[in-house]
């Protein structure tokens, strides 16, 4: 029987790690070159396994988790990122615009006693923030209810509601959560608007326009015709 026929079988035996049986076993017993060939294949595969194990089981650098922790901290700090700053700036603008919308009726008629409940609660919130700087903003926004008094009008929502553009709602919420610890910023956001109310109506000054004298001249007729 030719040894060439057994080579593929011997390679498979070496790769699988199985023991030769039957015809292959009897051939190997009587064929020294095939036994050598099998031994070579087994040695080769052992070298392959050793090489792969050496590659895979290299010591893990001690700095791996430390560096990862630092990278994670860097990436999960949205307050310091540029995009977050823009987001907060947009939210601040939205908040300022919203406050203007609600405070405008009161600014126009400061003596009027009939104020919208939302606007009055917002002003009350600012006043409360000024009075007690340690209290968080959300506790100050609750409207004051007099005990024992019941009115026929439907009970107002205990929490004030503010209109914001839909795509800026989440940014606005984050902005407000940050604002809770910073009363000075909350007051500063409203203060300039309040101070500027007199400056809103300013007479428009336009330079005098000089109109040159218009001279009308008849069109000369074409005499060649």
């Amino acid at each position: 029987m030719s040894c060439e026929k057994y080579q593929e079988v011997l390679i498979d035996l070496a790769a699988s790690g199985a023991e030769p049986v039957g015809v292959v076993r009897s051939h190997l017993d009587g064929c020294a070159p095939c036994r050598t060939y099998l031994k070579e294949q087994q040695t080769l595969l052992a070298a392959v396994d050793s090489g792969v194990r050496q590659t895979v089981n290299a010591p893990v650098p001690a700095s791996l988790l430390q560096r990862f922790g630092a990278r994670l901290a860097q990436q999960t700090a949205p307050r310091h990122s540029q995009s977050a700053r823009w987001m907060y700036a947009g939210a601040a603008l939205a908040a300022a615009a919203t406050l203007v919308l609600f405070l405008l009726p009161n600014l126009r008629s400061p003596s009027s006693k009939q104020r919208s409940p939302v606007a009055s609660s917002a002003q009350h919130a600012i006043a409360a923030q000024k009075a007690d700087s340690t209290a968080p903003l959300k506790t100050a926004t609750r409207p004051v209810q007099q005990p024992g008094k019941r009115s026929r009008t439907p009970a107002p929502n205990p929490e004030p509601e503010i209109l914001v553009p839909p795509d800026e709602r989440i940014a606005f919420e984050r902005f407000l959560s940050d604002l809770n610890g910073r009363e000075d910023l909350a007051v500063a956001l409203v203060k300039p608007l309040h101070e500027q109310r007199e400056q809103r109506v300013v007479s428009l000054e336009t330079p005098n326009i000089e109109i040159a004298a218009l001279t009308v001249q008849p069109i000369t007729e074409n005499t060649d015709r």
Partner: protein
Amino acid sequence: MQELVLTQPSRAAETEWAREAASAELRSEFEQRLAECGSLAFRVARGVLRNTADAEDVAQEALLRAYHQFARLRERTRFRAWLVRITFRLALDRARSAKRREVRETLWAQPVPRATTEDLAASSEFQAHLARALDALSPKLRLVLLLAAMEGHTLDEVAALLGLPIGTVKSRLFFARKQLAEKLRCHVKNTKKC
């Protein structure tokens, strides 16, 4: 006119706090798995790239991706398998881009002096040939081979990790080793088949 929606400032703050608390809890759960899985990610990457610095970069990238997508993972028990797949894909991408950047010399085409397998196993030349042979393996075979070669990984664990039947793992391991041996046979003394 622009569309506006109603929002309650105080409730919004509470929602934000709740979101932050959930995020902190998620991060804590992730960090518990990190100590064990960090080395797994590194070893998978090292097996593909064979370079410690590159493997560390890829492992970190994989861990970062895993962290960002951790909340979406339904079965947390499958985290290890999930991380292995992320790392393996990233490492393959890195290896491919590195190949494109540099034109390597084709050692396969060069005639090399034959030696015994014992000598070859220890030589850097054999390691270089083995590296190229590993690169030529299909991803399926390569991943099984690498995981099976890791310390402390039995074939049953590899099967569980990859969600494959044990028979499939054994079969892939057999073909992977056979293909590697076929490519490296040319460098063994007195071997007829090349």
